């Protein structure tokens, strides 16, 4: 089949649109002294909260294969709830245990999703 649309065309159009649009926006913002978009960045505390929760999610995904989905998800839930609300230690623990058990029995066994169960326990 002869190709009428060279493979480079679309990626180039899209790339040029993004770059030129971005350049135009940057120029406009520079001319207005950055007053065109009133930006509200999070304060230090909020920044740390967001970073920790996202890092926890990254660790959750990283350890998913070695220690298995049920255990990693349970730990993730317990840690995050405790981190966001220090007084909720028990809520976090209970939610974590429920999540782990649900992950194993409902998602893994009942719905037969092939979730990792942990390479360090099951070779």
């Amino acid at each position: 089949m002869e190709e009428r649309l060279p493979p480079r065309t679309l990626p180039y159009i899209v790339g040029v649109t993004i770059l030129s649009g971005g350049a135009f926006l940057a120029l406009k913002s520079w001319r207005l002294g950055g007053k065109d978009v009133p930006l509200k960045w999070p304060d230090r505390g909020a920044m740390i909260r967001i970073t920790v929760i996202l890092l926890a999610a990254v660790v959750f995904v990283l350890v998913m294969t070695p220690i298995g989905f049920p255990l990693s998800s349970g730990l993730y839930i317990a840690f995050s709830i405790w981190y966001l609300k220090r007084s909720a230690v028990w809520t976090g623990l209970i939610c974590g245990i429920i999540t782990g058990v649900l992950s194993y029995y409902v998602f893994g066994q009942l719905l037969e999703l092939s979730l990792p169960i942990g390479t360090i326990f099951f070779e």
Partner: protein
Amino acid sequence: MGFSWDYLLQGFSIALTWQNLFWALVGSLIGTLVGVLPGIGPSSGIAILLPLTTFLPPTSAIIMMAAIYYGAMYGGSTTAIVVNIPGEASSVPTALDGYEMAKQGNAGPALAIAAISSFLAGTLSLFGLTFFAPICAGFALAFGPPEYFALMLMGLSLVISLSGRALLKGVISMALGLLAALIGQNPLTGAARLTFGSLDLMAGINFISVIVGVFAISEVMLNIEAEAGAISLAGIKNLMPTWADIKRCTGAMLRSTGVGFFLGLLPGCAPSVTTFVAYDLEKRISKDPDRFGKGAIEGVAAPEGANNATSTAGFVPLFSFGLPTAPSMAVLLGGLMMYGLQPGPMLFKNNPQFVWAVIASMYIGNVMLLVLNLPLVGLWARIAVVPFPVLAPIIIFCSVLGTYSIRFILFDVWVMLVFGLIGYFMRKLGFPIAPLVLASVLAQMLETSLQQALLISQGSPLIFFTRPISLAFMILSAISILWGLWVQLKKKDRVVVEETDE
């Protein structure tokens, strides 16, 4: 091909089997829950659950997904009225008068009229869907690749010009969506591009990951930033509205159904837009507009009616053209494609049982939601009190589980987290998200039809302007972009609709 009672009755016979009734009920319950909980909207709710439903037959799965969608429209009003926190962007106008009514001790009637108005508008628009969709599909049978390309181009340009913010940012947002979708294999030739030799990128970026990222994850980040705490709740007494209330609202309900339905046929007119239009219309034609914002019951009935009418109307272009009008419709489109069902005129021709069963189930679902919502509204309001510190990790957990279950590769989860960050910064910087999501879902069809059209015309782009239907779509897309530009230049500081997951 037109409407036929045979097909509709056949659809009801499938929708009324106990499995399908059960899944419609489950969908309605989950939908109401998604609607009630702030921080998770219908698009991310459906996107997260979509991969988990693969054990169901396609009809039951789509019945459940559709129920989640319109169920969320019912649920969104509850927190808007009771605690002045709209569960969805589309419920913002509901909060204006609904919360005032609640403060005056009339939360019960407000909640009841919201449910009644939702039911009436949902059911009336279903009649519209039942009769319009087959007619549109018949019309779309004449479409070839050039018409499809022009139609999708029109859809995208409407979404950009209606997304309510800077036009250029809308264009960039769309281009980002296309860029993400271009990664991987060319749908027609299979050639790899933008993969940089990576096997993961070769598999392509799944748009479910994109949607869950930009909606669910970025919403969670915003809520963590704002340190959303627990919500306190007043008791709800005297539930039923008086007959005078209902009489007073009948006009508002019918008008908002019309506004919501017909605007809802257009791409870009998501419920978050039409609810404002309907509210504004009632205020304009009211004899004493001063009552609005101070607890006018029509001010609750109108946006809720428009909300449900719009969400039902979105199924007309989805089923007949395969064109999603809002992000949540794009997710449903993705769900249909996951089951190998290509929406569009051929769906009505090849899978009539499926389409009509889903439409019939929506009639049933609306009745279920009315029954669920009237007596249980106090219960739903109490669920909204789940503190966000507990909700946030659960939403992230569901997002990881949902995106992992699409293809069982970790790469999809990483993509989801990256798009969460992208979505967060886009929201912070005032970029609309809808163009990105629609573009990432439509990209493959857009590209395929472009390539096919150019094959037909032997490389000449004139083919889009020489065929009448395609020409009409091209002109409409040009008009919508010019109109958007004109509006932007004329009014520098027009009211911006706060955009979240609608």
